[in-house]
């Protein structure tokens, strides 16, 4: 910890190179005064001195302050992942601040796994890794040949970034009793009929998990996992993040309450109740009582519904002409998670209770079904300012954005997809025209739809400046510009990652901008995001955050 607990009545005035406020009445300031964890005001020094005796704090004098960044769509699962070995293609920063370099060859993946294997004490324990993405190795596949080099005896499990696939070594195959003639879809064999060690989708992966436990998932639910999630978020300048699929069970509630109650916990958490996750299907009986337990750092009350699957997994529901070049054997269209016929009833339940519903729709047909359901609900029971939000909403057409605006529906767009899967969408899933309108932020704003942008961590890393960069530049991993017309300005993107996200969470009266009365939540940056070349937005170093007036430096800055 870098500072003693501040005197509650103390006024502290932080000086910065510049402060981006997101307050349209005063876009820039040089000083911000904080008392009791909240903002007394922003402006120049003279405009703040009238509040009384204050300590002038110069530690950010050479830095830039902006409202704490808000991740509107992430999952605690991200925190759990860090208990395992990261083997992704891109650099990723762990909860301790360590930068895990991206692994550019399969040999590098094997080498990192070998090091981790050698560091393990328990000879029988499984070595678990995550974040692997095969699409970046030009067709070279990871197989048991690679993973057996890590260990011939210890089971090794490598979960892919998509979390829909895994690769395992021969020891794991043997332990799980998987044979080439297993008859289970998703157990992959090569041309010679030999197991490759790749296991796809639920049934095939279940064969492994039933032996080693539901390790990745369970770890995200632990106190340790929640802490790691918060630390990863904090390192990226995030002060508020959602856990967009939560069961709100009594155990979860007390774990969340206990963890976030700690003064040194560096994040405000917004867990969404997902009926999908709740085995007991309690619905409102779960959400409404949880709201009574809200604190400054823990906000219950939003609800998450999931309509379809994912575009890259060919499980999103697309309108005609459906998928562009689906793999052989793929079904014509994606899947429904919630039956379209049941969606309206589900929305109605939570809408009538005065809650905001966040609806996962990836494909444009799922978006259409969600809008039909919302329109029917709003026609039956109009409610002002509901702020129901479509989450991902990646393929929405211009007409759909106009409908959303007319219905008062917000969009939280999955901008990171542009970079990570943009090329795949262009070449395989959607084809050029629709890929170029992927996560069409400019179209949404032009139609008058309030937007935010997100990472869906752990699917992609939680890093709002990178997410903003994606929406501003619309560059794919290969460097292709995906729909220049839908680029938005840095100012618009930063707004989406602060006030925009706060708006979809109905927290915009408390967070998202630097102005009188709001929580003193700041992202402390080394450079001015509105002044750098937009192509460098993602590279701006984050010094740390301030949460409710408490300073949380990144580990490397924690003197």
């Amino acid at each position, binding site marked *: 910890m870098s500072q003693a607990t501040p005197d509650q009545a103390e006024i502290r005035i932080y000086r910065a190179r510049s402060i981006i406020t997101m307050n349209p009445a005063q876009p820039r300031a040089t000083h911000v005064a904080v008392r009791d964890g909240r903002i007394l005001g922003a402006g120049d020094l003279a405009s703040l001195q009238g509040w009384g005796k204050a300590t002038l704090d110069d530690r950010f004098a050479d830095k830039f302050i902006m409202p704490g960044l808000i991740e509107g769509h992430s999952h605690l*699962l991200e925190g759990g992942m860090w208990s395992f070995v990261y083997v992704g293609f891109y650099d990723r920063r762990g909860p301790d601040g360590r930068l895990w370099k991206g692994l550019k060859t399969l040999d590098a993946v094997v080498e990192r796994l070998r090091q981790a294997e050698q560091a393990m004490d328990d000879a029988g324990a499984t070595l678990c890794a995550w974040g692997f993405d095969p699409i970046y190795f030009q067709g070279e596949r990871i197989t048991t040949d690679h993973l057996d080099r890590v260990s011939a005896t210890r089971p090794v499990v490598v979960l892919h970034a998509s*979390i*829909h*696939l895994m690769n395992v070594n021969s020891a794991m195959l043997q332990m*799980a*009793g*998987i044979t080439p003639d*297993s*008859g*289970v*879809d*998703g157990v992959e064999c090569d041309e010679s009929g030999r197991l490759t060690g790749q296991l*796809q*989708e*639920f*049934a*095939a*992966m*279940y*064969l492994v*998990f*039933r032996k080693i*436990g*539901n390790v*990745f*998932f*369970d770890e995200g639910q632990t106190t340790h996992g929640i802490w790691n999630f918060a630390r990863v978020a904090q390192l990226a300048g995030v002060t508020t993040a959602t856990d967009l699929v939560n*069961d709100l069970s009594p155990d979860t509630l007390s774990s969340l309450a206990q963890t976030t109650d700690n003064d040194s916990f560096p994040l405000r958490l917004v867990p969404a109740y997902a*009926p*999908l*996750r*709740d*085995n*007991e*299907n309690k619905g409102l009986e779960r959400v409404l009582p949880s709201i009574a337990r809200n604190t400054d750092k823990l906000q219950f009350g939003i609800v998450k519904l*999931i309509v379809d*699957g994912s575009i890259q997994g060919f*499980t999103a*529901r697309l309108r005609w002409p459906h998928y562009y070049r689906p793999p052989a054997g793929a*079904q*014509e*269209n994606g*899947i*429904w*998670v*919630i*039956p*379209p*016929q*049941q969606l309206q*009833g*589900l929305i109605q339940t939570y809408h009538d209770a005065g809650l905001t519903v966040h609806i996962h729709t990836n494909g444009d*047909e799922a978006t259409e*079904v969600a809008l039909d359901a919302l329109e029917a609900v709003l026609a039956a029971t109009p409610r002002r300012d509901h702020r129901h939000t479509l989450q991902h909403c990646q393929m929405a057409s211009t007409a759909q954005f106009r409908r959303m605006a007319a219905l008062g529906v917000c969009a939280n767009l999955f901008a990171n997809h542009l970079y990570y899967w943009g090329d795949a969408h262009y070449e395989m899933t959607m084809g050029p025209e629709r890929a170029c309108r992927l996560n069409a932020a400019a179209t949404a704003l032009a139609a008058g739809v309030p937007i935010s942008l997100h990472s869906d961590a752990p699917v992609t890393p939680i890093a709002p400046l990178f997410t903003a960069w994606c929406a501003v530049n619309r560059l794919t991993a290969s460097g292709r510009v995906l729909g220049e017309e839908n680029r938005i300005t840095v100012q618009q993107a930063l707004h989406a990652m602060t006030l925009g996200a706060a708006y979809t969470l109905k927290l915009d009266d408390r967070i998202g901008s630097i102005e009188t009365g709001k929580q003193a939540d700041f992202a402390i940056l080394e450079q001015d995001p509105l002044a750098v070349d937009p192509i460098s937005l993602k590279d701006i170093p984050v010094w740390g955050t301030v949460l409710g007036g408490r300073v949380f430096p990144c580990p490397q800055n924690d003197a």
Partner: protein
Amino acid sequence: MKPPIALTVLGGFLGAGKTTALNYLLQAPHGLRLMVLVNDFGAVNVDATLIESVSGDGVVSLRNGCVCCSMGGELMNALMAIEKRGDCLDGLIIEGSGVSDPRKIAQIGALGQGFALQSIITVVDAAAILSQREDRYVGDMVKTQIAGAHVILLNKTDLVGTAHCADVLAWLHDTAPGVPVFAGSKGRYDWEVLLAPAVQTSEAPTSRMPLSWTMGRPNRSDRLEPSSVFQSYCFENSGTFDECRLRGLFADMHESVLRAKGIVHVGPDKRICILHYVRGHALTLDVTTQQYAGNSLIFVGTPDFARAPLAQALERTLINWP
């Protein structure tokens, strides 16, 4: 290693009658301890008291959980928990959501590790299916559910006319060639059909499931080949059967009745019995301690099986029949 748990997957679109069929199955006098896992997003109406009475060991239903999420938090955990108590279970029935592909769920039992697939049963709403198959959003899934079945229960046939029913049957045969169709209503079907293995697995499941239901299948060539169509009929009544007259009725049972079973109150000495009849064999009546809530007899017959005369004949075997 523990033998795998017998897995039955119940599929079918919303409103087809999956839950009603499941409830009927659970209260049937098979004496099996069954675990039920329901994957549904609306109100779940599986009768918890039935599950309690069948399992006898406090097994409860689990809801939701999504097979589409490979990490499958809750479903994954639920299946692992069920495996752990495999010793005290005779089978697991998973009722899929109205829009899930039962074949995907059934994959869990494909390897015969932990779970061994017995059958995929798809329930079809005879009155609604012809419009459901055209639905712009779910038509594809409705067809997928039917094409993936080992057994089709054509439900709600009491709500449609003969011509409509024939149209539905013809389409079912096109969509799922060779798959037996049991036509009936109100979710009442022969539970042995629902619980018997329809697929070969490498390892024998743990459960003591009844013999294959195919023994009662007709040999003669049928105009609906290659699929077989069976009529299901459920006789429910609160009276007491006269044992002598009941045995007499079954001794002369019309050849269109292939099999019958159920729980009955038999007089004059007022015993609760499990009735079991297979065409060509003598009727058996075994005294049972199973819960009794009125007579419930399920008949399986060929398509020309006439329900009304059978119902009248059954009523005439009741002791208090006027």
